[in-house]
């Protein structure tokens, strides 16, 4: 029974080959060995060295069997990794680290990656990996399953989707691939399937609350900004509501290299987070009062004249005239063009027909030209035929007044007073002086002054806005205030400005996920459709009191709810399509992939969802909490087993490749989403044909769809042909090859060239959206506007400070403003759940490797004084509670947390909590009317204009658990 050393040491070389142990290989010529000074000489270094050498060789495997991948799990960092295998199994990964350096004075992007990607090899083989298709045989969530074949699984999905279409129409089906696979080629599979079937698909960014609608208001789009290497060069870097050291791990080095390069780093967050530690200035704003702070800074900038008038005149709507009576923008369509104050001749330059393009007077706006002292139409709006913002040209010379009041005559004979947007803004800002906001924001006027100087003085200043700001009820207004601040400083192109998430212009992929308009999915508003699926209005009633809603919205609780419901009923279903924020009550069959929605959604969502869902098929590589409630589970591949390509968002200029190691063994029976989708359409087509054969009913083959097909129906007998483009598009590899062939910005590249380079390609110059993508310079934004005077994609063509949508006027939000949160005041702590270091939402949250590097279980951080007052000690389980319930969670005590807040990493799966009751079950929310508003200029539903589900609008109390 003796354990020999030989056996023990053999274990060492688990992966490596047999280790040579010279001491053992020799026969028994045994002499006592004494080592004099092992620092100076050692008799046998080789035998132990060889053990470790063999082990290293084992993890590295054969270089020819290397693959490439990235871990696209919605951190969006997107990094090229080398994947090593041995005997068909992934042993390890490391960053490819071969991105080229742009210029000698710009730090390169290597080695992109993070703590989560670096352990993907580990979770590929953990016991929560889904290995086989499974069918539920007990009650939902009861944990009783039967392993079935892929044929059985596909047949069941096809039958449910087909019958749903037949009986209730395409809107019965909800086909969606979630944030776990946010990639260009892989995710296109399920989008394509959904489009072909006309199924409902929600917008991810808004349902997770990661949208920038307030930025869209000002800039016309929410995802704008620079590559992170640009931040390296900025002289001032403000990180607002974000924590790049934790949530932008691959890019964070540019901040600190930037600091060494002379950049001042400023972080604005309520808690002292991991980015604050190296900052030059930390601004501990109170949760939800970011808008107030932004407006204070703006107030100071204006009061101290720290801005450039010329930039405001050319690029903003601040000179545009606004009616005093209605608070609406003065539009050419209502102006009496005959009055002498109107300069018809000068305006004509912007209104004359240009080819097919005709002026639309309702979308033409006016300013007072100080050169002629007359009203003139300003160029560049949606209604003018001239797209430039240029104030001076051969034909015109404009100097729009920023201040003043004028009387103008309208077509209807009325004379009304008009003034400029800047005048109204200044008036509004009088309520937001730093002295007035300090009690709300907690920020001293001296800090506001410093920020006003920092944002206006230096050559280049950037405000990088995180998702946290948008997670408050009035986050959209706060985002808008911050964006207004950036816009007001006139920073564009090399001088910096607003940075949310840059997106590249990638053309040619539409054909992969769609059908050029022949069929399209029912694209639903993310925040609305999830809110309604979860019956969250009921939680709203439970959580918010009359006074909360009054404070936050100005109207009573019932009235507010009524307004919301009225808007929602307008836009519901096919009838409501294009009349607001689309959502479909009719959904009942769910085919979902990589969308662990129960960890994300709030209050009673889970219960409400399960009641509505008739059929749930769920594909993922792992068992998520949501998966445990599915009817059918489909084992999917992970990034290392898939072919894929990924570029956006544009934190960097590379598109990364997923190229499975050639000798990799399949894990269980996992399949790619493309393969699954192809099998589903094959089966659905077979079912349709069979039904037609059986019944002779032509409706079996042609399913009517008036709103989401160009032909009026879905051709069920051509599903396979159309889905696969005549057989060309069946697999994930086909999709990657399609992308390389069709995307201009990827050219010239092949799988081989990408593999040889290290698993990526560099986007060519065509990828730049609002600026050129120079080969040797970091990408920044809006050079086309700054230097070429191109219009912004806004109603007025200008940076938008003024919104005259009736709901906005009614709410007093026509000018930039800020409002108090609606979160209940009766509980002492606001719950903040920022993006985690140890997971990307719930993906990787259950990795033992990563759990061991935090506290192994969900925990909430609280301030030491709070803990002391409540007699709570670090590490003990406490109770968090409010009207929506209670949750048991471990307390972690940290002075980095403000006394009025609880801070916890988000993403924990409900099944990681006692009784599977996760922290989100305590979270309530309400839809913001302004985010629901629609149909105004650039504020029309789409990826740039949807709203957020708010995650931070809940307060809680805590207590010791008494057992």
């Amino acid at each position, binding site marked *: 029974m003796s354990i020999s050393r030989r056996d*023990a040491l053999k*274990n*060492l070389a*688990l992966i490596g080959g047999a280790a040579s*142990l010279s001491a053992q290989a020799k026969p028994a010529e045994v002499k006592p060995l004494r080592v004099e000074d*092992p*620092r100076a*000489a*050692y008799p046998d270094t080789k*035998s*132990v060295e060889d053990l470790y050498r063999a082990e*290293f*060789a084992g993890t590295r495997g054969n270089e020819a069997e290397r693959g490439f991948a990235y871990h696209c799990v919605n951190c969006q960092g997107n990094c090229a990794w080398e994947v090593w295998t041995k005997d068909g199994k992934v042993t390890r*990964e*490391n*960053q490819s*680290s071969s991105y080229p350096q742009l210029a*000698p004075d710009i*730090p390169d992007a*290597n*080695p*992109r*990656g*993070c*703590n989560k990607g*670096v*352990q993907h090899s*580990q979770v590929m083989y953990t016991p*929560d990996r889904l290995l086989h298709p499974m069918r539920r045989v007990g009650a939902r969530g009861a944990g009783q*399953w039967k392993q079935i074949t892929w044929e059985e699984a596909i047949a069941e999905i096809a039958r449910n989707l087909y019958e749903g279409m037949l009986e209730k129409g395409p809107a019965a089906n909800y086909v969606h691939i979630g944030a776990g696979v946010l990639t260009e080629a892989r995710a296109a599979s399920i989008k394509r399937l959904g489009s072909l079937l006309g199924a409902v698909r929600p917008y991810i960014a808004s349902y997770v609350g990661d949208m920038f609608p307030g930025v869209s208001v000002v800039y016309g789009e929410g995802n704008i900004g620079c590559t992170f290497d640009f931040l390296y060069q900025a002289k001032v870097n403000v990180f607002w509501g974000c924590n790049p*050291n934790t949530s932008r791990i691959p890019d*964070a*080095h540019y901040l*600190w*290299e930037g*600091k060494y390069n*002379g950049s001042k780093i400023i972080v604005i967050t309520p808690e002292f987070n991991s980015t604050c530690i*190296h900052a*030059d200035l*930390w601004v501990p704003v109170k949760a939800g009062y970011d808008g107030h702070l932004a407006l204070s800074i703006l107030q100071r900038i204006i009061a101290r004249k720290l801005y450039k008038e010329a930039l405001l005149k050319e690029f903003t709507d601040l000179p545009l005239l606004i009616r005093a009576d209605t608070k609406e923008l003065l539009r050419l369509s209502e102006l009496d063009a005959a009055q002498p104050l109107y300069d018809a001749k000068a305006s004509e330059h912007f209104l004359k027909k240009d080819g097919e393009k005709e002026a639309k007077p309702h979308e033409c706006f006016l300013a007072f030209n100080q050169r002629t002292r007359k009203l003139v139409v300003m160029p560049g709006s949606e209604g003018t035929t001239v797209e430039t913002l240029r104030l001076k040209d051969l034909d015109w010379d404009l100097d729009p007044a920023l201040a003043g009041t004028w009387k103008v005559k309208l077509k209807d004979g009325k004379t009304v007073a008009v003034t400029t947007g800047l005048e109204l803004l200044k008036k509004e800002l009088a309520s937001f002086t730093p002295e007035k906001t300090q009690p709300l924001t907690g*920020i*001293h006027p001296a*800090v506001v002054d410093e920020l006003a100087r920092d944002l206006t003085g230096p050559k280049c200043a950037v405000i990088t806005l995180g998702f946290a700001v948008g997670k408050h009820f009035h986050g959209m207004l706060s985002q808008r205030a911050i964006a207004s601040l950036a816009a007001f400083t006139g920073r564009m192109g090399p001088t910096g400005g607003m940075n949310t998430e840059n997106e590249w212009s990638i053309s040619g992929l539409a054909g992969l996920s769609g059908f050029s308009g022949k069929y399209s999915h029912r694209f639903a508003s993310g925040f609305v459709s999830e809110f309604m699926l979860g019956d969250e209005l009921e939680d709203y009633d439970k959580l918010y009191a009359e006074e909360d809603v009054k404070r936050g919205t100005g109207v009573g609780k019932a009235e507010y709810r009524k307004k919301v419901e009225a808007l929602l009923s307008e836009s519901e279903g096919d009838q409501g399509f294009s009349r607001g924020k689309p959502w479909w009550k009719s959904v009942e069959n769910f085919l979902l992939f990589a969308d662990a929605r129960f960890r994300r959604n709030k209050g009673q969502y889970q219960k409400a969802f399960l009641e509505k869902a008739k059929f749930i098929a769920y594909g993922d590589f792992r*068992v998520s909490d949501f*998966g445990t409630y599915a009817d059918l*589970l489909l084992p999917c591949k992970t990034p290392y087993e898939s072919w894929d390509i990924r570029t956006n968002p544009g934190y960097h200029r590379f598109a990364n490749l997923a190229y499975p190691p050639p000798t990799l063994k399949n894990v269980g029976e996992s399949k790619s989403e493309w393969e699954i989708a192809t099998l589903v359409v094959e089966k659905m087509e077979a079912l349709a044909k069979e039904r037609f054969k059986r019944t002779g009913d032509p409706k079996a083959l042609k399913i009517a769809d008036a709103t989401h097909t160009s032909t009026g129906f879905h051709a069920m007998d051509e599903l396979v042909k159309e889905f696969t483009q005549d057989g060309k598009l069946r697999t994930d590899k086909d999709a990657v090859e399609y992308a390389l062939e069709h995307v201009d910005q990827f050219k010239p590249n092949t799988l081989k060239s990408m593999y040889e380079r290290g698993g990526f390609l560099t986007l060519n110059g065509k990828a730049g959206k609002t600026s050129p993508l120079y080969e040797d310079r970091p990408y920044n934004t809006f050079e086309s506007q700054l230097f070429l005077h191109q219009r912004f994609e806004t109603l007025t063509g200008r940076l938008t400070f003024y919104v005259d949508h009736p709901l906005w006027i009614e709410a007093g939000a026509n000018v930039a403003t800020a409002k108090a949160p609606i979160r209940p005041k009766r509980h002492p702590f606001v719950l903040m759940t920022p993006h985690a270091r140890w997971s990307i939402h719930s993906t990787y949250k259950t990795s*033992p490797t990563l*759990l*061991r590097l935090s*506290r*192994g279980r969900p925990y909430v951080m609280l301030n*030491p004084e709070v803990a002391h007052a409540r007699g709570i000690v670090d*590490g003990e389980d406490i109770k968090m509670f409010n009207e929506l319930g209670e949750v048991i969670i471990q307390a972690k*005590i940290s*002075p*980095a*947390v403000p006394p009025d807040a609880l801070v916890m990493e988000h993403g924990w799966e409900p*099944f*990681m909590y*006692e009784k599977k009751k996760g922290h989100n079950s305590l979270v309530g929310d309400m839809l913001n009317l302004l985010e629901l508003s629609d149909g105004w200029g650039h504020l029309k539903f789409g990826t740039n204009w949807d709203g957020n589900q708010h995650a931070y609008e809940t307060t809680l109390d805590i207590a010791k658990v008494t057992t």
Partner: protein
Amino acid sequence: MSSRQLAMVMDLNKCIGCQTCTVACKTQWTNRNGREYMYWNNVETKPGDGYPKKWEALGGGFDATGALQDGVVPSKYSEYGVPWDYNQDQILQGAELQPGTDPTVGPNWDEDVGAGDFPNSYFFYLPRICNHCSNPGCLAACPRSAIFKRDQDGIVLVDLNRCEGYKLCIAGCPYKKIYFNPKLSKSEKCIFCFPRIEKGLPPACAQQCVGRIRFVGYLDDAEGQVAKLVNQYKVALPLHPEYGTQPNVYYVPPMTGPRKFDKHGKPIEGSDRIPLGYLESLFGKAVHDSLKTLHAELDKRKAGKPSELMELLIAYKHSDMFRLGTKAPEGFKLPVLK
């Protein structure tokens, strides 16, 4: 006594605490074979108990005369932390996901906690590997002389053929960077990834460091960043030099963080959020000169003047941070820190 000494410099001003290094090391070496609980590379939040818990109070190292000091061998249960396993195989069957052992201590237990009072709290990250000391406490403690320094690079290794698992090395290492492998009944430690070094690859923790904080090179390579930061600019300092082991991992100390606030919320000009005394307790008196140099060079850079030091720390090219292929020059000698 080795012919050359390979060394690492870690820039704490760039460390973001992401622990990619920790996991890179784990998958390279310590996710198997009795090493599961070990973190040859760990990153701890300072101030804090660190890993293993309160390691700075566990003894080892040398006194001022050069005599080895007694130390404590930490327990997996109360100081290192059990690598919790989970019932992942049961969640599909409806179970709650639970660790097999109730977590009470771990390698990153006090992550992002730090010290001070809100809003004047402070913390920073301290990544730690074996220091591959010139006078290793572990080597000194081994009654079997089973720990040696490789001649070509000074990497400290345990001769697993001779190790008898007495754990006196663990008591002797003041950094607690050598571990007992219960499966082998032998000690194991960070090997500076010498099998990678031999193939021209930097250690996994350094090559995969996404904060780009780690420089690797020979101390005698005067052109290398390591030698410049350590010997020329003297901004990179050993951790706890008073432990007397002459570590070969050096740290650029954290500059002092954002200004503190007075009771009205006004920033206090010139205030040090991280108390200098605390930094001195970690890096010795030399930390004052190091920080002065860093601030002076940063000011130069801000004024648009060239600063080689800032350029070194910026590290324009990742691959340039590692200089493994150099030859030993004549006449090198490590300057002695005051």
